[in-house]
């Protein structure tokens, strides 16, 4: 079982966490026309990186969402930070 560092609570078992999507994927401005292709890209396409992957996770026990960078091949955790923080 993996362990992830919640930026607010510290190191916890992975079963306390949920994956919440890829990080850095802004919602398109829906007040402007968006092509079907662009919208599909936003809805369905993810980079699904092999290696370092930036992801949003939620720590279900404190309900805080945060960004985690982890290696999808080795399962190494490369870092976590709160959403409002810019990583060093």
């Amino acid at each position, binding site marked *: *079982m*993996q*362990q992830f560092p919640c930026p607010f609570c510290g190191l916890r078992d*992975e079963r306390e966490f*949920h994956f*919440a*999507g890829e990080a850095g994927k*802004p*919602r398109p401005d*829906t*007040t402007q026309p*968006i092509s*079907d292709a662009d*919208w*599909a890209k936003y*809805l369905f396409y993810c980079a699904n990186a092999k290696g370092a992957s930036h992801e*949003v996770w*939620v720590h*279900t026990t404190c*309900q*805080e*969402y945060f960004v985690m960078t982890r*290696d999808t091949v*080795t*399962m*190494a*955790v*490369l870092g976590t930070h709160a*959403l*409002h923080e810019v990583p060093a």
Partner: protein
Amino acid sequence: MSTRLATSGRLIDRSKQVAFTFNGKRFTGHAGDTLASALLANDQMLMGRSFKYHRPRGVVASGAEEPNALVNLGEGVTHEPNARATTTELFEGLKATSQNHWPSLEFDVGAINQKFARFLPAGFYYKMFIHPRPFWKHIYEPFIRHSAGLGKAPDAETRDPDTYEHFYAHVDVLVVGGGVAGLQAALTAGQSGLKVLLIEQTAFWGGRTPVDGGEIDGKSAEDWITEAVAALEVMPNVTLRTRCMGSGVYDHGYVLGYERLTDHAPEADGPRHRLWRIRTKQVVTATGAIERPLSFSGNDIPGVMLASAVRDYVVDYGVSIGDRTVVVTNNDDAYRTALTLKKAGLSVPAILDVRVHVHAPPLVAEAKAAGIRVLEGMGIAKVVGGQRVKGVAVCSQAGEGAMVEEIACDCVAMSGGWSPVVHLWSHCGGKLLWDEEHAFFRPDASRAPTGADGLPFVTTAGTANGHLHLNDALQDAHSAGKIALERAGGKAEAGAVVPQAQGPDEAAMTPVWLMPQGAGYELKMKAWLDYQNDVKVSDVQLAAREGYESVEHTKRYTTLGMATDQGKLSNINGLATLSNALGEAIPQVGTTTFRPPYTPISMGAIAGEARGEIFQPIRKTPIHAWHEKNGAAFEPVGHWRRPYCFPKDGESKHDAVMREVKNTRESLGLLDASTLGKIIVKGPDAGRFLDMMYTNMMSTLKPGKCRYGLMCSENGFLMDDGVVARIDEDTFLCHTTTGGAEHIHGHMEDWLQCEWWDWKVYTANVTEEYAQIAVVGPHARDLLEALGGMDVSKDALAFMEWKDGELAGIPARAYRISFSGELSYEIAVPASFGQAFWDLCMQVGAQWNITPYGTECLHIMRAEKGFIMIGDETDGTVIPQDLGLNWAISKKKEDFLGKRAQERSHMTDPTRWKLVGLLTEDKSVLPDGAYAIKDGRNANNQRNTQGRVTSTYHSPMLERGIAMGLVLDGPERMGEIIHFMKDDGETLVAAKIVSPVFYDPEGEKQNV
């Protein structure tokens, strides 16, 4: 015959007799015996029948790798199948029975299968049973289910009387395996002061070394082991556990240990098994090695055993397998068996060594000096015998199996070399190297499993690392211990002295994958690779000829290594056979994946304390106890238990539901709706936020008013619905479905934290703060007025309004909302007042025959009114437009979640199935989920469909079946009759398409 020797047996206590039974026959053994050694001591060589051919099988090994000797243990509530006799410690009164035979172990009808072995090759099931299709269900499957399987599953009605527990441990270094390498690694790590845990799967320390011999620091191996354990025991930072197996290594230093506490002493107090949930910085796997069988014809006949096991039984238990043992080997180690047997006064007619020695290595020379006949370059053509070994036909290994001599014997000790136990290393991604010299896979230290920091967290030590010589193993263990402790942040003790061991040097082994190497089909089809699943050399070769190139596919096709022993003996031999057949090198073919657990662990240990009532915590409303006391029939809804209905004495559930609907519609009903999700959304941007969350406009809602809202995912699909009440300018209370409360709250937080982080909104899930009670029916207002304290008249509290006040002195918030079409109020009171308020309603409502009702009555009433239910009318692919809910989708709003997605071409496709009501012509209830069929067939030759049932009930008000469903062009086909298919796939039910509002279409009942 196999028998107890007069002397030897280092693990048994000859002064203590232990009585047990096998297949009802009484036997005695000694304290310290395993079930296998005690049976062998009583000449009970036959222990089971094989899976496919029902071949007679005896024990092959002496430890966890045993594939054959699987027995049923205990009876009744303590019955357990598939226990390995070799790892079952004997205790007084043990009851074992053999498996997979009928009518008896000695005479088995299924053994006829072996006569047809030629017709039961690899992939037989796939080839034979595929046609004709209907035969599978009615003929093949019952037959296979009857004849397949090993042990009997415990009776479903019995309950395990034993207790189990989970145990959490946090350590710096975990050492798995208590042989000399594990002990040395633990000593090295322990001396640094770090927290060390050492676990050993058997009941004793030292592993194989006391049997194999050798000296450590001038002492006998046994003395060194005793001293090492004593030294570890006094270290306060070191914990030792025997009977505790390292079961699996998982991500980030998580390891499961499986401790068998009372299997050997069932009368003892305390839990039977303990699952250790270990978090460690470093793991050292000192898991030893397993000897490989040789593949020759008849290598499964009882009496053919691993050479190491033969000597284990002599040295550890004082048991000889036979009087005359032929040793067949490709390495020096098996000579130890010959020498041990000779020393015990037993006869070794010959050692068949496939190698030819120019200079005899020490063990070979010792055997020759002891007068044992060594036949070099020789192997076994076939074993003679049926239920027991009677002799071997000797042949040249280089030939095709022409017999040069037959040697009478009653035991064959075989050794095909050793394979390091790499399972734990591999569980979490450790890679392997093919070691050409020893013909085995060993851990590749440069590609170790890595942890959360990306650095290695597993080290391997001793034989498990491919160091077969005692001294090499010890030196390697010390260095593994040092690596582990340093990686764990410790400092090695300066000047630690590493013990030195002495033992004979061994010559190189010669890989042998088939004996003799030119064996023909007749020999190969009796040369077993996987004993438990009956896979032979000929099967793997056939798979290769049929085009199976991947080892993973071959495994599944032939079932090689798929039995409960997970191929501990068969994997490497099978793999080598496959790579030879494919003409590829072994490392190119690779291994199958090693997966936890190392050996099967009990379901009880996995469950631990989580059984019965505490298996899963149940959420209970404040009125739950009342429901229980008043005979509610419960159904699970999420983690809640909600009353399905309240049957009276002798009343069926169906009758109860019908009564509840009628009483509510005609007079007064009461529903515990406390489980409905309640989420407070508060802040200056709350309205703006809810406009994004819901398809309707929520920001325009006036305080004091309620609005029914739909919530869609960004994909456009309907995910939840409920009534939103505006509490004040800044505050909304959103009702969700019972199952949706946590999920919808999370959904809101996701958008608030990740996307609209600068909006000033706060959310709180207050579901459990309130008891919510629906007062429903023509007398609902009468009841509230009788309770008194709040004006609930039509003018004071109109439909879709709410207000705060008091009812019968209890602080209450009354929502005038209806999910039934009746005059209805939902009263929210603080949770602590829930029971009191319910009791008052029941008491005062008695004059109107108040009827508590459950979820089924709720469902029928909403269906009679055509109200949708999330999870019935929706399934994650349905959009509000499909359900005719366009009125709840704002056209004014610039944006909301799902808006853009609902404009995608598939979402606006006019052929999307749409919601309609359905009335069967014969008034019957349509089967839930039934499909409406259409003319013609699709590309898969299935009937075309044009709709499906989403909700279906018997309506007591209309006295007929009613249903809702999604139908192609449904709303345009009112009055048309379509046909639904019943579960039998044959019977059609005619139903008329109608409006989904079946009852009180004008809404007169609620508008009072």
